[in-house]
């Protein structure tokens, strides 16, 4: 009975209530102040704004477990355009690259299907970071370990939904049983298609063995910064290892030839 979330980006308003709720519930610190004083200016100056629409974190990190993306598609003189919002987080992949890569069993899957980092086990080797195809998990210098969304592990194991879903005022994020959520997603997709949104699609049924947190997008997933058919890195492991073994054998043969006995000619050492 895997729990998950369905993020219907067609009704997201980009209010960032989910970002705030996530930080509050999980006790995550804020980012360094966006303003600081510079010499000869009486007022504080913004220094770490992304400059990309209303995006305020730019990416997910060890302290930003939710990230609302703002995708502006306007023409030159801004007479027409579209503005997409999409709240992003860990997808709790069924075949999770981070979990496969973890050498110490710090990253585990709980009985509710969520992928969870055990803070008391993590050694901070950082190998999970490049192993996540979604750039979700990240390292904290402060704790020396990695952090990411837990699917509100504590809440869901006590009968509550996730904090972000609870806070979402439009119902864009919904929490529940994955199979139930899929029914809801399919219904919404056919409704949108009926209304003429032919590009609408669902992202996450097949990716990485199925994502427990999946999305309804109004355009190609790449527009929302999500890769099409990402390959879970470990699915390439066997081939990579096999080719390396073949090369090792080739090097060994080269060594056998270079160091072989040359006829009767024997040179003695020194």
């Amino acid at each position: 009975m895997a729990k998950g979330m369905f993020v219907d980006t067609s009704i997201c308003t980009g209010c960032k209530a989910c970002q705030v709720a996530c930080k509050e519930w999980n006790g995550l610190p804020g980012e360094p102040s966006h303003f600081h004083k510079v010499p000869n200016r009486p007022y504080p100056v913004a220094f770490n704004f992304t400059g990309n629409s209303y995006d305020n974190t730019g990416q997910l990190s060890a302290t930003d477990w939710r990230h609302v993306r703002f995708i502006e598609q306007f023409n030159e003189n801004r007479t027409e355009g579209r503005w997409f919002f999409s709240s992003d987080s860990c997808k709790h992949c069924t075949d999770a690259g981070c979990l496969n890569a973890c050498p110490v069993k710090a990253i585990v899957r709980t009985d509710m299907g969520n992928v969870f980092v055990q803070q008391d086990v993590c050694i901070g080797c950082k190998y999970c970071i490049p192993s996540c195809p979604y750039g979700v998990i990240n390292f904290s210098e402060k704790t020396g370990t990695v952090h990411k969304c837990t699917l509100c592990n504590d809440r869901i194991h006590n009968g509550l939904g996730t904090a972000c879903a609870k806070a979402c005022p439009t119902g864009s994020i919904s929490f529940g049983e994955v199979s139930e959520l899929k029914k809801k997603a399919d219904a919404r997709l056919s409704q949108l298609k009926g209304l003429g949104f032919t590009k609408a699609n669902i992202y996450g049924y097949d990716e990485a063995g199925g994502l427990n947190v999946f999305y309804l997008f109004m355009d190609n997933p790449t527009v929302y910064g999500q890769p099409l058919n990402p390959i879970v890195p470990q699915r390439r492991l066997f081939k990579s290892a096999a080719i390396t073994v073949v090369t090792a054998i080739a090097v060994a043969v080269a060594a056998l030839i270079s160091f072989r006995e040359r006829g009767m000619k024997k040179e003695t050492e020194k």
Partner: protein
Amino acid sequence: MISPETQAPHWEWYYIAMYFYIGGIAAGAYFIGSLLELLNRENLRSISKTAYYIAFPLICITPILLIADLGRPFRFWHLFFYTKDAAPYMNHTSPLSVGTWALLVFGGMSFLSFVNVLAEDGRLTSPGLKKFHVLFSRIPHKIYAAIGSFFGFFVAGYTGVLLNTTARPLWEATDPLVGSLFVASAASTGAAAIVLFMLNRKAGTSETFGRLEAFDRVAMIIEIALIAVMLVVAGKYAAPLLTGFYGVLFLGGTVLVGILIPLWLNWKGFKPGAAGGSMATLVAVLVLFGGLMLRISLVQAGQM
């Protein structure tokens, strides 16, 4: 499709790339030494001995580098033992996990071989070690030489497989060739380290140098061929490796200074003698330099 938004682990070059490099030299040298031992090449015994003298001290450095890069260094033993199950732990889908175990086995085997050559040269002074040597010498030396060279190859190659088994664009695009490249580089830098050590101690004959030179030549040819194929396979994703600072390190340091020039010098041939000795030293130094640049450029360019 290669993911557009992945994050870099921010591994420090002076820990991780350095480990890949030093581990590679130790593994390459050990492999050459143990192969000669397995082949019973008594007349090339000086190569085996040198190899064993190099491998163990080098492999002793590597855990320090690895542990220093951890966010929680004092938890390094979690790599071997999972407390919640109270059992040893290995994750077979993680090259990092399997590789750490391989490093442990390789370290053990290179220690045995090291003690062996010490005893052979009559340098074993500590009575405890002497007793230990007598004890483990009941196992034929060839057995752990064989085990050690297998795990040596593992240590040399898994680091490349580890990079390939991620979603970082450069590392994913160069899949599945970095493991092979690191194996070839380990063999060539291992041979170079042996040459350097032997020249330094004025050990070895023209035959030993000739053999090592011949082997290094083949290893470098394999290496340059793999690099060519890798760049073709990676296509546009190879850009971080070909441009900017890491482009200079990779193309200038590894390809030109570390492979092409030594290959050319090697091809011309040199006799280790008064003048040849300095030439052999130069080639060995260049090869070792190229190996380091290879690790740094691949590890760091993938994190840009």
